[in-house]
């Protein structure tokens, strides 16, 4: 963490020295109702307002209430690509937080613990720098007994602010904004707590840290998590109808859309089940409004029949899948990227659809818009594969120009003289969906259907038409594949190792490449956002490398390949494509990726 040390003491006698740092990883461990996510949120937001990059990672327990919970925030002056392998500082509220997370702390790191609930172990005194503060009782002392130890998160934030020399006026403003709408005494209490923490003597601390100046990129940064970015992206794209059923970690998106959409004249319906939700969204899409539904693993399984219908009937639809640990109910609050197969192939018969995956929070916003536009242009369901890792991760990114971005996709009811919903002579098989309510001059009205059909939508058992219609549905997806941009290689186009990633693995993979290249290795990375169809010509990129390793969070599979790895091998018949996979429910550590790559490349 520390890069240079200056002997510039702060005021007072035996003050710690000040070190300048470029980044820090802070892990906060407590129980789920201690408000540790709030501290993480404050720090992340502060970083966003301080020209610094930020990335957070959190785990929440799958229990109904209480239970151990962590929040990790990595703040940096440069580009932050992952939530960090090891923590520089651990803030532990309880014995279990201390014992359970000390291993995540780097040797020589600082453990700041609540001395009211936590007794440090002698054997760890050597390896880590221990600072014990009676956080709970000092909080009660600061704001009086009525609040008990509620507010210890804000008190701790005061401690951290002192330790990392954070911008206090900006933090105060954030506190006011966060608690402003409520009872004025709440803001007052929060400010008191913060000040008490900030003024607590840190004589036990060895150093005070100051972040290097961030690079001013021009313009503002916005700070949000992946689920928020998706919801706002959908709104910007013009989505005004959605339907869903609660499931972790998708629920945040539906809750936010339910709250926001009425302002835009739209609505979101909580349905009786997943099947009703997808059906209702398809109904609204049929009615002319490209609608959204979404879920996580098990919910997507339930939706697959209807998604197949949308492929067959050529209906636009956006399906968000916030992937979590599977199979079945699996690990609801942990990350995994194991729904790729169901997204690409789930359903009976041949039903080609589009699958895309964002790499980070900023991508969640822009790719949600892209999902809507692809769905409309190709009249096809688009599966949007995000994951628990991005869903709850807070990142800062440049503020979008909303005036230019926001689009209106209200139904086009301009009368037409003639219309065939499944016109076989359409260019590349792409036909626009005609919303009900549109007058057709010829008097011949379309029926949309899941039965194999003729050009007007009427059922047919004709072998010839089944072949032709199947080709139509396939060809429009192939056309999209041909139009997709080829992803750029991160690093040189040739070398020993190419690390291929998709979804939230992009950051750690890039960091791995940076680290290995700094050590002189010939390694590059490729991130694929369009997973079905794949962009054309990926093989040309692969031909520049001796080893191609696909880094993904799913099981190695029956034959030793992860899900994307198997798809790439099947498409390119390239035996140099191999997989680096894991399913421990946690995001990638840079070290894990490199260790695996080195082992396989031997």
């Amino acid at each position, binding site marked *: 963490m520390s890069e240079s040390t200056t002997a510039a003491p702060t005021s007072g006698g035996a003050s710690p020295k000040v070190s300048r740092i470029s980044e820090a990883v802070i892990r906060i461990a407590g129980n789920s109702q201690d408000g540790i996510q709030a501290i993480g949120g404050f720090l992340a937001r502060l970083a*966003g*307002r301080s020209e610094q990059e930020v990335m957070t990672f959190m785990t929440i327990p799958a229990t109904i209430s209480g239970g151990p919970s962590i929040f990790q925030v990595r703040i940096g002056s440069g580009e932050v690509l992952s939530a960090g392998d090891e923590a520089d500082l651990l803030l532990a509220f309880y014995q279990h937080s201390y014992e359970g997370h000390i291993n995540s702390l780097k040797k020589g790191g600082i453990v700041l613990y609540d001395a009211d609930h936590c007794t440090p172990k002698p054997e760890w005194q050597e390896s880590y720098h221990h600072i014990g503060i009676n956080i709970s009782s000092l909080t009660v002392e600061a704001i009086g007994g009525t609040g008990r130890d509620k507010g210890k998160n804000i008190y701790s934030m005061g401690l951290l602010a002192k330790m990392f020399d954070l911008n206090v006026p900006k933090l105060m403003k954030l506190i006011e904004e966060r608690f402003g709408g409520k009872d004025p005494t709440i803001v007052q209490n929060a400010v008191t707590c913060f000040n008490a923490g900030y003024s607590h003597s840190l004589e036990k601390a060895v150093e005070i840290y100051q972040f290097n100046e961030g690079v001013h990129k021009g313009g*503002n940064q*916005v700070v*949000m998590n992946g689920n928020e970015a998706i919801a*706002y992206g959908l*709104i910007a794209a013009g989505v*005004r109808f959605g*339907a869903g059923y609660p499931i972790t970690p998708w629920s945040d998106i539906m809750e936010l859309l339910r709250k926001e959409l*009425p*302002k*835009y*004249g*739209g*609505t979101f*319906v909580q349905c*009786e089940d997943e099947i*009703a*939700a997808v*059906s*209702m969204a*398809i*109904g*609204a*899409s*049929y*009615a002319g*409004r490209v609608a959204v539904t979404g879920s996580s693993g098990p919910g997507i399984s339930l939706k697959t*029949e*209807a998604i197949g219908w949308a492929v067959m009937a050529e209906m636009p639809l956006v399906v968000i899948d916030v992937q979590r640990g599977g199979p079945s109910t699996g690990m609801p609050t942990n990350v995994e990227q194991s729904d790729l197969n169901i997204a690409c192939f789930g359903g009976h018969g041949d039903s080609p659809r589009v699958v895309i995956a964002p790499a980070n929070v900023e991508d969640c916003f822009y790719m949600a818009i892209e999902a809507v536009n692809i769905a409309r242009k190709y009249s096809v369901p688009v599966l949007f594969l995000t994951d628990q890792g991005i869903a709850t991760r807070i990142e800062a990114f440049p*503020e979008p120009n*909303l005036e230019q971005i*926001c689009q*209106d996709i*209200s139904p*086009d*009811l*301009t*009368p*037409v*003289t*003639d*219309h065939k919903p499944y016109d076989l002579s359409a260019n590349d098989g792409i036909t*626009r969906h*005609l919303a*009900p*309510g549109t*007058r*057709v*001059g010829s*008097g*011949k*009205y*379309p*029926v*949309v*259907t*899941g*039965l194999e059909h003729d050009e007007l939508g009427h*059922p047919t058992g004709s072998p010839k038409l089944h072949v032709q219609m199947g080709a139509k549905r396939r060809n429009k997806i192939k056309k999209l594949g041909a139009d997709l941009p080829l992803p750029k290689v991160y690093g040189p186009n040739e070398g020993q190792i190419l690390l291929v990633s998709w979804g939230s693995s992009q950051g750690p993979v890039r960091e791995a490449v940076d680290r290995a290249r700094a050590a002189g290795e010939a390694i590059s990375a490729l991130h694929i956002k369009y997973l079905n169809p794949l962009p054309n010509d990926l093989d040309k990129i692969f031909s520049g490398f001796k080893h191609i390793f696909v880094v993904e969070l799913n099981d190695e599979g029956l034959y030793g390949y992860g899900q994307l790895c198997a798809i790439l091998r099947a498409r390119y018949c390239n035996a140099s494509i191999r997989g680096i996979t894991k399913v421990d429910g946690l995001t990638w550590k840079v070290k894990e990726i490199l260790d695996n790559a080195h082992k396989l490349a031997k």
Partner: protein
Amino acid sequence: METFAFPFQPLSRTGSLNTAPVPPIADADRKGLTKKEVAADHPTWCPGCGDFSVLALYFKLIEKRKMWHEKITTVAGIGCSSRFPYFVQAHGAHFIHGRALPFASGISLSRPDLHVFVFGGDGDAFSIGGNHFTHTARKNIKMTYVVMDNQVYGLTKKQTSPTSPMGFKSKTDIWGSSDRPINPVKQAVSMGATFVGRTTSTNPNHVLQMMEAAMDHDGFSFIQCLSECIEFFPGAFDSANPRKGGKFDLIPEGHDVTDEYAAYKLADEPFPGQFGIFYKNSRPTKNQNEAKLIASHREKVKDAKDWQILQKNFDRMK
């Protein structure tokens, strides 16, 4: 009825549909449609199927009420009766088994300018789609749902249906069904449907009368229409057909249609029971509730453009 208007106007787009637009005809200049103009494919039903009658009366309803193709949409799930949309010359959708109601709800909630008619059978409605029947009724989403009840699975060639009488012999109950059948009218009333009617395809005037009343009802309107399967359960409804020696009893005029308990009592009478409107009440529809919610939210943002509303959220996240 409160109007439920989305605030934005349709755009003219560059990627227009595959043919040149035709000028719209002012409503006043238009004549009502003739049966010929609303009939599409010849139905694939077996000769003698009760569903023919319901289709003919749907045409008659469109003709009589001067509805135009583009003002209605016909939706169905899976089953013999669910082939309905193909036989009607209007916008239509043939959705997956049991899910016609949520699909129709999506249309109804997002497009208040359309009247949504849903047609289905007893398996589609009460078995695989049972959950949706409950919740669409509970939410009182505006649409008309006509279930052509033949008390048997016809498309898959004679299996037991949720309305098959006890003792009914089918391929899945070769010794006779031992399950108690559903009483669709009682179920609909208890779930919160705001219009519950019952009719039989052998009495065309009554079917038309029921469909008209259902269409005029602002809310979820449900009609159980007995419709004989000539192939797999012939004679099932003879007792409701005076021409076959049965009786067709109308609900007595004194019946209070707003009284739930009276509706249960009537619905409990032994088969074939009575015909007409069992229950009809006025309760805000989900369409109205959502429109109200939107109106109050729109009031707060006044004339702000969409991007400006979104900008406010983004400003808070800086």
